[in-house]
């Protein structure tokens, strides 16, 4: 067991390190510009929240930019984690099975004594490598950078905002995985995964405070709230449970689908 996950995971290690470096750079830049940003305005929120259209404020769930926590929540976590990394994991997930099918590697893989469910689950598990690496490296950089610019952040909140992003990113990867078993051309699976993930983000953001807010409940983004974690130190484990449930459901549907199809 887990031979496929190990093999795939090893192959993902190098890319994951590059990903962690890129996200750390983003974090470093955001924190580095924060002091000059905050000094440029007498009242950041007054100036900024009025300058941005309400739709943008709502879309990115901007709460405050007057503190480094609020600034980070928007610039790094809503933008970098919820959107960029969410899309990237959906994209990676979409490349798992579909790429093996499209490139004809699935024949040799499935001719070995491995079950189809094992194949799907283990390829999904290998996505833990980028998810974990990026969430181990970046918080260290975030904390150290904040110290360097003379701001202090709560270690607990930083750890939490990264730890709680892990089930969120797995759920996004699950969207990609499902696309990957349904479609057998990688590029189409990837486009579907990106489209659905971004669509869910828009759905959740734009339907908040409308009569259709309940529809946003299907979006994983509803269950990962960097603002609440960083500004209020509020960690909702119920949300984590929902994300894990979503992930398990997506993986289960992917397994059932893959078992029934020709490759």
């Amino acid at each position, binding site marked *: 067991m887990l031979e496929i996950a190990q093999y795939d995971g090893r192959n993902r290690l190098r890319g994951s390190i590059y990903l962690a470096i890129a996200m750390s750079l983003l974090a470093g830049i955001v924190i580095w510009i924060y002091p000059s940003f905050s000094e440029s305005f007498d009242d950041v929120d007054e100036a900024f929240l009025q300058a941005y259209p309400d739709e943008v404020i709502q879309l990115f769930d901007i709460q405050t930019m007057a503190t480094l926590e609020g600034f980070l929540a928007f610039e790094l976590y809503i933008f970098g984690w919820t959107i960029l990394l969410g899309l990237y994991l959906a994209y990676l997930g979409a490349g798992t099975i579909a790429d093996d099918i499209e490139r004809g590697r699935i024949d040799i893989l*499935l001719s070995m004594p491995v079950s189809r469910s094992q194949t799907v689950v283990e390829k999904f598990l290998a996505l833990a490598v980028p998810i974990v690496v990026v969430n181990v490296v970046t918080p260290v950089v975030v904390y150290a950078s904040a110290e360097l610019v003379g701001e202090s952040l709560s270690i607990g909140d930083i750890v939490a905002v990264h730890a709680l992003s892990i089930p969120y990113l797995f759920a996004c990867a699950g969207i990609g995985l499902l696309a990957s078993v349904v479609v057998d051309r990688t590029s189409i699976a990837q486009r579907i995964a990106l489209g659905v993930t971004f669509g869910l983000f828009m759905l959740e953001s734009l339907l908040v405070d409308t009569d259709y807010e309940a529809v946003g409940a299907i979006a994983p983004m509803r269950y990962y709230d960097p603002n609440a974690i960083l500004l209020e130190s509020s960690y909702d484990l119920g949300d984590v449970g929902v994300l894990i449930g979503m992930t398990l459901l997506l993986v289960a549907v992917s397994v059932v689908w893959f078992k029934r199809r020709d490759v």
Partner: protein
Amino acid sequence: MAAIELEGLTKTYGDVQAARDISFTVESGEVFGYLGPNGAGKTTTLRMLLGLLSPTAGEARVLGADITDERALIGAKRQIGYLPDDPQFDKSATGREILEFHADIKGDERSDELLELFDPPLERPIRAYSHGNVRKLGLVTTFMHDPELVILDEPTGGLDPLMKQRFAEFVRGERERGHTLFFSSHILGEVRRLCDRVGIIRSGELVTVDPVDALLNRSGKVVRLATVDPIPRTTFERDLEGVHDLAAGAGVRTRASPRGEPADDSTAAEDRKQRGDATDDGVYREYTFTFTGHVDDLLAAVSDVELVDLTIEEAPLESIFLRYYGGDDNA
């Protein structure tokens, strides 16, 4: 126990029947060739046997496992090796990493011995492999867990002649060790050299399953004979049974083709007249024909004749093939 059993196995894609009602059995310990042109349905059949495609109708068992029962099939796959017609490996991995991955899953009984035989460049990434090297690595991964049953789809495509030779020797060795090989091919000579029995598939349908010998016997032997003095055409045409496609020639130069076009067209007759080899009409010194009768009868028929040369050869498998495919545009 039969190694592979197919009963009415069918695969349909919309209106297209890629494999139609295919039934045959591959016995344990035999080398079975699955012969047909490209697009006949060979790969579809093989991929159904491995559970990659689900059959539309019919059933099949490999090493006793129902191919639609995933759990049973996985059990059987521990003793199955499979090489697809266009094997693909992770391009960024090296050959060695691929072997380690396969060894982790299937075990490794004999990769050292196989590497000596087929010798792919293990330290290089697959990206830098030629087709032939990918195939060699594929042969190693296919046989490394020493499977009882090996299913190969066009196994020698991309191999150079030396490797083909090695592969042929290797296959004979596997048969001697009692292993079962089932391989598809569109190359007649390969099947003839390696196989005990042959199934011929055409446009998704199984045409025949026969021992290679029987196929050859049924298609007869090619007889070529030259005499010192001209003998009458009736010696063979009328007095001997089992003569087909009789062609007669003057002697020095025969115009008979293997398909047996009679040589007495006007130009040939002209040649004969000029050289005076043919004394009368219907009397010649050289004959070529396909013979399905008894060799004893043939020898008796020419026992009084002084021979310059006599050869009796197996008909080329090509001519057997032509019987099944002849005149078909799909062939």
